């Protein structure tokens, strides 16, 4: 059994794509599609890695990440942040919020896979 990855993303097609890529590589993938209760879901699942979208209904990815970083349990949790807004300031905001890695959509599948492997291994 591989390690657990939680994908928090509201776009069904993207969830499906990421799930497919990671499952094929042997990861165990769970998904969640809104921001409201995302923090609770993470704390409950305690995955090895979280892939987090920025634009989520209910709460932004930045806010969720900040909350996670303020909790002891999730302080060091690897988080790969995805955003469809490709501006410099978005990257800065992600870094400030505490993202382990930041990626702009559209991404290449190999890129995502490598990032996940590195973050979990590191």
């Amino acid at each position, binding site marked *: 059994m591989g390690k657990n990855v939680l994908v928090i993303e*509201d*776009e069904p*097609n*993207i969830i*499906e*794509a*990421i799930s*497919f*890529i990671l499952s*094929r590589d042997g990861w165990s993938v769970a998904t969640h599609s*809104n921001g409201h209760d995302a923090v609770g879901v993470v704390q409950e699942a305690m995955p090895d890695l979280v892939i987090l979208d920025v*634009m989520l*209904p*209910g709460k932004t990815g930045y806010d969720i990440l900040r909350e996670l970083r303020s909790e002891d349990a999730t302080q060091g949790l690897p988080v790969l942040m995805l955003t*469809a*807004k*490709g*501006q410099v300031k978005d990257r800065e905001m992600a870094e400030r919020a505490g993202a382990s890695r930041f990626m*702009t*959509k*559209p*991404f*290449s*599948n*190999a890129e995502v896979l490598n990032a996940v492997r590195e973050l979990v291994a590191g």
Partner: protein
Amino acid sequence: MGTLNILVGVCLIYVAFLFLVAFAAERAALEGKGAWLRSPLIYTLSLSIYCTAWTFYGAVGYAARSGLEYLTIYIGPSLVMIGWWWLLRKLVRIGRSQRITSIADLISSRYGKSNLLAVGVTVLAVIGTTPYIALQLQSVTVSFDVFSSAYGAELTDAAQGSNALLVAAGLALFTIIFGTRNLDVNERHHGVVMAVAVEAIVKLLALTAVGIFVVWGLAGGVGDTLARIDASEIGQWQMRGDRWATLIFLSGAAFLCLPRMFQVMVVENEDEDHLRTASWAFPAYLMVMSLFVVPIAVVGLDLLPPGSNPDFFVLTVPLATGNDALAMLSFLGGFSSATSMVIVAALALSTMVSNHIVMPIWLSTQSGGASVSGDVRHVVLLSRRISIAAVVFLGYLYFRLSGGGTALASIGLVSFAGVAQFLPVLVGGIFWRGATRTGAFVGLSVGFVIWAYTLLLPSFGAGTLVSESMLANGPLGLGWLRPQAFFGISGMDPLVHAIFWSILLNTMSFFVASLVGFPSPLERLQGAQFVNVYEHSSTPQSWGGSLAQTEDLMVMAQRIIGAREAQNLFEREAKRQGMSGLLPEPSPDFLQRLERELAGSVGAATAHAMIGQIVGGASVSVEDLMAVADETAQMMEYSSKLEAKSEEQARTARQLRQANEKLTLISEQKDSFLSQVSHELRTPMTSIRAFSEILRDSDRLTENEKIKYSSIIHDEALRLTRLLDDLLDLSVLESGRVNLNMQSGSLKGILDHAVSSALTGAGADKMRVVRNDQQEDLMLHTDLDRLSQVFINLIGNAQKYCDATAPKLRIEVGRANAALVVDFIDNGSGIPKTEQAVIFEKFSRTGEQKVKGAGLGLAICREIMTRLEGSVEYLPGQGGAAFRVTLPEQVAMAAQ
């Protein structure tokens, strides 16, 4: 009658001779050959207009009635000339450096150039002088009368009147010709002065000739004459100290203050040094004039029958002894005394009347204000001429109306007392810097009221202007206000009483009011200029002055550029000059710098004039003042322009700020729009890329998986296309470059099309649409495709977002506010109030994203409806989500 004719002839020749003298003098002065015109002798002789016909004829009468008291009239001026030499010199210096034109001008200039004060002084001077002119006219006619009656030709009243009128007209003409030939800034009239000097000689010669004739011809030598004097009543005469002191003071004061004396002494003065000669020569002249008065009086009293008028002994004694030629000379002497007084008085008064009354009124009637230029000279000359004629005519009128009777006899002293009221203000003004305009006003007013009340009104005799009971008991029974016994002090001579109280109270109120009030800046400047005239007028060209002036400069600079700046400037200058104190030496260098500094605030002309006032010799000329006025006007215009400009700038700044805010907002909106567009484009592209890579890289995909992933790619590609279409559509609509395709069609048809277009795909059957055919039976004329697009969008939204288990959409057509409305109301949970405001904004999808859409639909709808001159808005309170499309009335009307 023959002698009478000769007399008339001699008179005419004499007058013609005077004209000639005046004309020659003017000519010589014009050609610059008149050095002799500017001799101190001429100046001294011109001062002799002090001796009018009243003195020429009246002195003998005075002596016959009151003994040696007549001497006071000569002693006063002599004391002034000898003892008050320094005061005269100061007056003359001020008059020259300030270009003073009259005593009214002097007083008004000293007290802050107050024209009101000038008008007051002018009016008082006219009041004081008019009876005096009348007296001269009377003396001429009466002496003529005396002459003619000696030859048995009684003149009628009418003939006397016409004589007086002729004389008046002649004098006015002379004064006009030689007094207003041209406008001289220095107000010097060589012709007039020369004629007056000639007349002075004639006066002296005539009186001396008569005197010599009397002493050596009639009395038989000096010894005999003295014996006759001792034997006469005059010899028994007792001196009254109070009257003497008063009269000496009075004649001295009048000598300084009489407008005509001021004219010849100050205005016509050519050279200050002339005063040196005049200070002994004029008293000498007066002495000779007074020398034979008593002998003539004594001999006249002896020689002529009792009851004959002693006032004309000078004339009647030679006549009675058959000395026609001497009598004629004597007549000419009297005539000279009268005419020279009238001429100079008219000249002096006309200058005052014209400058301070006529010209200000004329200027104020000119709408152009200070812009008048070339023709002012002409107007000034005209106004002078009219004033001369008016002054002389006023004298003539007074003479006719007063009947030429005894009322005139005392008028000389009353007049003297009137003008003497100028003395405190005049002397105070040139020696005391603290004297103020208010003080001058109060002092003059008090003095003149008391003069009029105690002397002028009673002089017309009890029961005429002042009732006898008032004289006896005071006004309203107030005994202490009795006109001739103020504060109950009775027993004084009326003249002494009047002079004492009027001058005392005048001076006191002048001082008190000056001390109580504060002088205005201009008064301060003028005060310094007058009081320190010697320091001010010694350096003509470049500036320069004493340290004392620095304080004045400081006061002025503080007023103009502010206390701190002025102090800094002065300290800096003091340091530069290496001075230990805070005040610099008023070196030309410093003054120039100061002038430049001040010019920045008040303009160059004003600054120059102000500094000139304090340290410069040159006084402020009319041109300077015009320049100052000009500058002030320009500065006012400039500052009002600046004000307008700064208002405009504030407005522009406000507009710019608003525009900037708007731009910032737009820029932010653009950033956020781009960011959203990026997001909306990247999301489908992410899916497309991810699945296309999966399809490419994985060979173990099932057929179903392949189909599914290909479909996702396909759908996301379509989504991208729609998004781009919407963006383009919106950008075209927003830019306003839309071509509307106007068509006619039925509302029902459009809705049919919209419903069938919108309700396609999965769940299309679930939505029930409720419509009303009757309502929809309307023809429209508009862009039907665009309208249909709006309808499709709204119906599609209802289908996408209506969360009811049995979704239903009602489409209702109606009218509201003279417009056609189409409402789309579903039975879902509707849109929360907080979001109703933003749903029409771009990319403002609400709630959780169950259904895909770029979020541009409603924004597009809104733009379309704006182009169609209608609107689309959320209709709250309808249960579910409700949108109202409003179309203008004419869309429906046009189709019908």
